[in-house]
């Protein structure tokens, strides 16, 4: 067991922790040229340059707005669908589930190309709403899956119990289901935001270049920015979801029966 722990630590550090540290170090150092003995030289200008770019701030704001909007819609659809699936006795549930999850397997690029004409016709091309709608396609199936699993773990009996004790639809959701679904909410938040931040192609197609999100700034940066600046930008890509996640975590604390972290038994 001990040797296993050591080998795990080595693998985890080399393959998962080390790359991030490398990015961090490169972002606060001038580009490395080891062969000309330019090792680690402290600098801060990459972040200054990055944060002085007005495009970056516009894109960050847009990405955050899109991310949260996508998250909220995912949350509602996932919650309702998970609840409906777990408490429904009817046959054909497997089919409903399969149909709901099937968009995972369709190429999102094909869907975006197909929806492009429709978006133009109904005036949603090049708009924030159009992009938000498209970002739902690669995220909602995962949310449904996550919430369905969460509800399955809680079990319909727990929900019936609260119903018997007098809780109505919404009381039940807020006092029992959401507190017990906390792990599901966390995974969903994280996954949704990162997936939304990862969309270059479909954002470009539906946003028509008018809706500027972080990936749309990142790709052109590749052409002419130096390594330090790119590293700083890469770190920025992790800072955004983490910050957005912390906000959600604070909101989760507002749920009934939340313990302060130091009085947490489970």
């Amino acid at each position, binding site marked *: 067991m001990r040797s296993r722990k050591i080998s795990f630590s080595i693998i985890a550090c080399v393959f998962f922790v080390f790359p991030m540290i490398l990015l961090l170090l490169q972002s606060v150092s001038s580009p490395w040229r080891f062969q000309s003995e330019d090792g680690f030289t402290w600098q801060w200008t990459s972040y200054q340059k990055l944060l002085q770019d007005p495009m970056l701030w516009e894109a960050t704001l847009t990405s955050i707005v899109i991310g949260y909007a996508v998250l909220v819609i995912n949350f509602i659809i996932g919650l309702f669908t998970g609840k409906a699936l777990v408490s429904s006795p009817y046959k054909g549930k497997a089919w409903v589930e399969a149909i709901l999850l099937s968009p995972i397997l369709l190429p999102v690029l094909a869907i975006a190309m197909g929806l492009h004409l429709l978006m133009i016709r109904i005036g949603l091309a090049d708009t924030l709403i159009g992009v938000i709608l498209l970002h739902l396609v690669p995220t909602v199936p995962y949310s449904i899956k996550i919430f369905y699993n969460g509800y399955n773990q809680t079990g319909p009996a727990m929900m019936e119990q*609260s*119903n*018997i*004790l*007098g809780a*109505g639809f919404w009381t039940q959701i807020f006092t029992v289901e959401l507190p017990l679904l906390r792990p599901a909410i966390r995974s969903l938040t994280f996954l949704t935001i990162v997936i939304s931040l990862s969309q270059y192609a479909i954002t470009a197609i539906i946003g028509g270049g008018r809706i500027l999100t972080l990936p749309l700034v990142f790709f052109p940066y590749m052409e002419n920015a130096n390594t330090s600046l790119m590293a700083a930008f890469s770190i920025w890509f992790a800072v955004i979801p983490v910050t957005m996640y912390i906000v959600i975590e604070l909101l989760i604390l507002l749920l009934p*029966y939340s313990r302060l972290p130091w009085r947490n038994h489970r």
Partner: protein
Amino acid sequence: MNQTTLEIKNMTKNYKSETVLNELSFQLQQGEILSIVGPSGSGKTTLLRVLAGLEEPTNGSIFMYGEEITKQKANKRDISLVFQQPLLFPHMTVMENIVYGAKISKKYKKEKTDALLTAIGMGKYQDHFPSEISGGQQQRTALARAMATEPEVILFDEPFSSLDPSLRQDLRYWVRNFLVKQKTTAIFVTHDMEEAMIMGDKIAVFTEGQFQQIGKAKTLQESPANLLVASFMGGNLILSEEEYISLQEITLSPPTDRKADRIYEATLLHVTYQHARPIAHLHIHSLDEKVSLPLQHEDELQENVTIYIPDSEVRRFHEEGR
């Protein structure tokens, strides 16, 4: 005079083509505890779920104090249900679990929930989470939680079956006393006749979607309404659709004091001992029934035995007692 708390009229529940509850009718007086006993799969749980409002009956109606509540939703009914599993909310402490229903039903008074907590002997554990207390403690907390909503009726769905036997025994008496002390009207579902007799003022034998008989334990034992009740109660040998005899009246040697009118041949399967007395397990060929009889004399131990039944002791089922 006792008031009728709950009344069920002609209740039927079908799942697809299967009839689970068949034209069920009964009444429950205030403070009365009714045990419903029946084999597993007989629809007992469905009955409780319909009463609690978790499922709608296909037909029939439910009245509480004369008011129809058939269409009322589960969360609006003054009926509580304690499940087989305690189903405490894992994210709430013992106290929060008890207070939960009371607050939602707007019946929360601190003195009352405190009293309940003391009554179930969990005062010391009020800030513990369900994962930190034992199965028996969990089930007691679940009971207190159900009581805290001040229901008119509490339904129990085999609440002790997930506990180990010694704990089950203790908890039975505890719950029974608790319900009597609180003057609670309750329905108690079980598949165990002994448990049914301990818990209920009256016992309802429930099979095939119907009550076969409702009455006190003594009545059920002494004058079963039909062979289903008689075989469920045990202690009887069923002779035909209409007739049975108590095992006490059967002898393995010709009785000296009276005439033995019927004689059956039987095979001895096995001998066991109970309270230091030998018990013979017999198979009666012509009836294809197995019975267990206490042996009077050791010399009755043969492979093939003869059973003597006096006509005077043969009873007929009291169908009118239904």
